[in-house]
């Protein structure tokens, strides 16, 4: 029987891989994919606790997280397209138009 700690450890490792992607990569699209990785690792935590505690609330939260992730992906990719149109790049070091 797989214990809930093993699922939590897997999820922690995946979350940290996502953190490394956000901190290290400079391509805005890959940074965005790393954020999706982190969202998914948290979803795994929620489903593991849901199964462990026999409570459906965790799976409901995963359902709503997926909805928010879909909205976030649509708006975020639209922002990347708009940035590419004015700067011709997706390198986040070159995009500093919000910096004062």
């Amino acid at each position, binding site marked *: *029987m*797989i214990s*809930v700690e093993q*699922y*939590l*450890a*897997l999820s*922690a*490792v*995946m979350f*940290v*891989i*996502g*953190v*490394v*992607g956000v*901190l*290290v*990569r*400079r*391509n805005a*699209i*890959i940074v*965005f*994919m*790393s954020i*999706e*990785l982190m969202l*998914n690792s948290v*979803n*795994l935590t929620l*489903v593991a606790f*849901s*199964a*462990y*505690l*026999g*409570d*459906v609330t965790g*799976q*409901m939260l995963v*359902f709503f997280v*997926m*909805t*928010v*992730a*879909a*909205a976030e*992906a*649509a*708006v975020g*990719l*639209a922002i*990347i*397209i708009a940035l*590419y*149109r004015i700067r011709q*790049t*997706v*390198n986040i070091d070159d995009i500093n138009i919000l910096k004062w």
Partner: protein
Amino acid sequence: MTLQAVLFYLLAAVSIASAIMVITRRNPVTSALFLVLNFFSLGGLYLTLHAQFIAVIQILVYAGAIMVLFLFVIMLLNLGDSQSLREVISLRKLAGVGLSTAFLLEIIYILGFRVSDFPAGEVTRGLEIGTVEYIGQKLFTDYLFPFEITSILLLAAIVGAVVMAKRKLD
């Protein structure tokens, strides 16, 4: 080793390997395809936890809809091998990796000392809670208000995406 253990270790290995490939590949299309593999292995892990509905919408919504959007944008932007996108090893990146390692150690410390305080539960108790019937019944009774709010959120996201990606604001 039981079948569940074999499946867990196999899917966990696939998901970690594909996650590492996502953040190390130079070409964004390769990264996106490894991310799809990662989502499929997560769908399998949800099945080992008896969350059938979540597993199916993981494949449909994440591997289907969201990743198609990613691939569409990558191909729309048509990023060549431009010099401005080359990744160099800098002090800041090493600091990022160091901080992430410290973060991983913190999480493992918390796991090692806190989770064992939970009451020992039976994972098999949740056999019926992952089914479409049970989730649908809960969704349209206890969680009806958040479900309706979600529709407003999605409408706002559609409007925002169209306004952002439009060629000219006039």
